[in-house]
């Protein structure tokens, strides 16, 4: 409760126009699907409108005043994002369309180095027969499939950490899994299903011992202000704008400048070049080397507005509030018969996404009943099919919390689940 008062959730909710909506006719919206995509504050929506109504132009190319303004807005957003994650230098921030692209960028850049691109500078990135890439069983498909495709192209071998029954990484075989053949370790900072926060620093220390690069999928942690790239331990960090109050169509890859400098380009096109001849081209320094064509300009500017918004509210207050909601949710859900929480049942080293199964009710049916009451959750495997298989469940229902959620909304979820049990005659 303390956190709720310290954050002034009522005031925050006023910033999010969609929270005034009714759904299914009369029901006030109870939005508990922020791990899927977050809602957008007026400050971000207004920034987009203002950009298109007053400053819209292409960037880096135009010598006119609109072009100057648009370029400054875009590059200004890069600085804001860099500050939000503690980057030493905004040139370490590469804009992409989402975190999936950011991860693919890294995988393709490594693949291109393996195919000979980038010359001697990129030698460290080159994969050889027998090299290994390590992921985990709790990854989002976006941090699985790019590596499968890379392994398919290069002959490298994909290996992975398993998960324990209580939804933590099984680190018992870490020293065998991460070995001299390991070239990349890619894992989520926070699981989008379990909420589990993984011990990145420890795993990165082991990976760095053997000379492997560490990529962290921070899609679920940056939105909660949990990432400081100076201390995280990762070499590469990806995240996505739409989950952190920003627009769709924008994501970020962060990496140290020297690493970006050695990575061969991924997408080719306008703006990522230095000179172009028909025979060959040379490329711009990072970050522009990885930003081909007209970028999601308004979207980057919108993401800058989102980091401003989160920083203004205060990431400490947001975290405290979410912890409070999570504690309340875990307690309340534990009181429902037949409900099994996937992942850590205690609010320790876990964030505000709670997935669960309810005996006798399929997640689609459960979420349908919840939706009928205005409660929006996600049902299915949440793009983490292998994790569900590992936990022995076919699908689950997930509620996820963000700065604008309230205790009353958690209670609406709990009531809805009980109602569903009545409706389907399982309780």
């Amino acid at each position, binding site marked *: 409760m303390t956190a709720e008062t310290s954050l002034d959730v009522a005031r925050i909710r006023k910033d999010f126009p969609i929270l005034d909506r009714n759904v299914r*006719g009369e029901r006030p919206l109870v939005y508990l699907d922020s791990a899927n995509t977050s809602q957008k504050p007026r400050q971000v929506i207004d920034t987009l409108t203002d950009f298109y109504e007053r400053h819209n132009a292409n960037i880096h190319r135009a010598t006119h005043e609109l072009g100057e303004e648009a370029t400054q807005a875009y590059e200004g957003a890069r600085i804001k994002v860099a500050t939000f994650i503690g980057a030493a230098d905004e040139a370490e921030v590469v804009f992409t369309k989402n975190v999936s692209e950011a991860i693919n960028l890294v995988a393709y850049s490594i693949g291109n180095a393996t195919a000979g691109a980038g010359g001697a500078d990129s030698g460290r990135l080159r994969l050889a027969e027998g090299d290994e890439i390590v992921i985990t069983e709790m990854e989002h498909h976006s941090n699985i499939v790019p590596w499968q495709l890379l392994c398919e192209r290069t002959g490298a071998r994909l290996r992975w950490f398993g998960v324990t029954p209580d939804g933590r990484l099984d680190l018992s075989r870490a020293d065998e899994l991460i070995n001299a053949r390991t070239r990349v370790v890619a894992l989520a900072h926070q699981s989008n299903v379990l909420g589990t926060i993984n011990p990145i620093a420890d795993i990165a220390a082991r990976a760095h011992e053997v000379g492997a690069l560490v990529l962290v999928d921070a899609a679920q942690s940056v939105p909660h202000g949990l990432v400081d790239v100076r201390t995280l331990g990762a070499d590469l960090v990806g995240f996505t704008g739409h989950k952190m109050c920003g627009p769709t169509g924008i994501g970020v890859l962060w990496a140290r400048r020297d690493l970006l400098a050695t990575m061969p380009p991924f997408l080719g096109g306008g703006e990522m070049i230095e000179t172009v001849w028909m025979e060959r081209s040379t490329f711009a320094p990072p970050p522009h080397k990885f930003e081909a064509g007209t970028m999601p300009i308004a979207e980057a500017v919108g993401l800058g507005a989102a980091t401003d918004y989160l920083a203004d509210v205060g990431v400490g207050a947001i975290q405290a509030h979410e912890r409070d909601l999570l504690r309340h949710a875990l307690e309340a859900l534990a009181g429902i018969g037949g409900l099994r929480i996937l992942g850590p049942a205690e609010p320790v080293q876990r964030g505000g996404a709670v997935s669960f199964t309810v005996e006798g009710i399929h997640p689609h*049916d459960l979420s*349908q009943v919840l939706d009928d009451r205005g409660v929006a959750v996600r049902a299915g*495997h949440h793009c983490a099919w292998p994790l*569900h298989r590992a936990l022995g469940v076919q699908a689950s229902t997930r509620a996820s919390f963000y700065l604008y959620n309230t205790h009353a909304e958690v209670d609406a979820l709990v009531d809805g689940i009980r109602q569903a049990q009545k*409706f389907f005659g399982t309780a």
Partner: protein
Amino acid sequence: MMQLESLYTEIIMEHAARPLHAGLREPFDAEVRHVNPTCGDEVTLRVTLKDADGEPAVADVSYDSLGCSISKASASVMADLVIGKTVSEAMTVSEEFVGLMHSRGEAEPDEDVLGDAVALAGVSRFPARIKCALLGWMAWKDATARALSEREMDAPDADREQL
């Protein structure tokens, strides 16, 4: 709860609780496995055809379905509807059902054709659930197409014999 009850009709709940023709039986002409990529729901389905006055007909549909009430009920309704019909009659029913699902709640379903499947009409107002309702039907269509093409390959080729 008005909307909810128009989706989970009594007939649906009954089919979901006690699905007709469920289980996998032998012998069969074709077997397929279909999944719903969003939720991981899956159905394994077998089709056995027979000959009805020179036309292929559905002798049996047996299946094993892992999914929500809607997908379970829909598979049950489907199996009960198509078994015993000629393949071409059953395809007509199937097309009618697909049409109903995409009608956004606007169609007047024909109970003479669709039988218990009219109880699934409410699904068409919930686009995210249409795939659930279609899972079994699509599996049946796929399995039947395979069974038919096997038969064609096995059958003596009438045209060629005339040459």
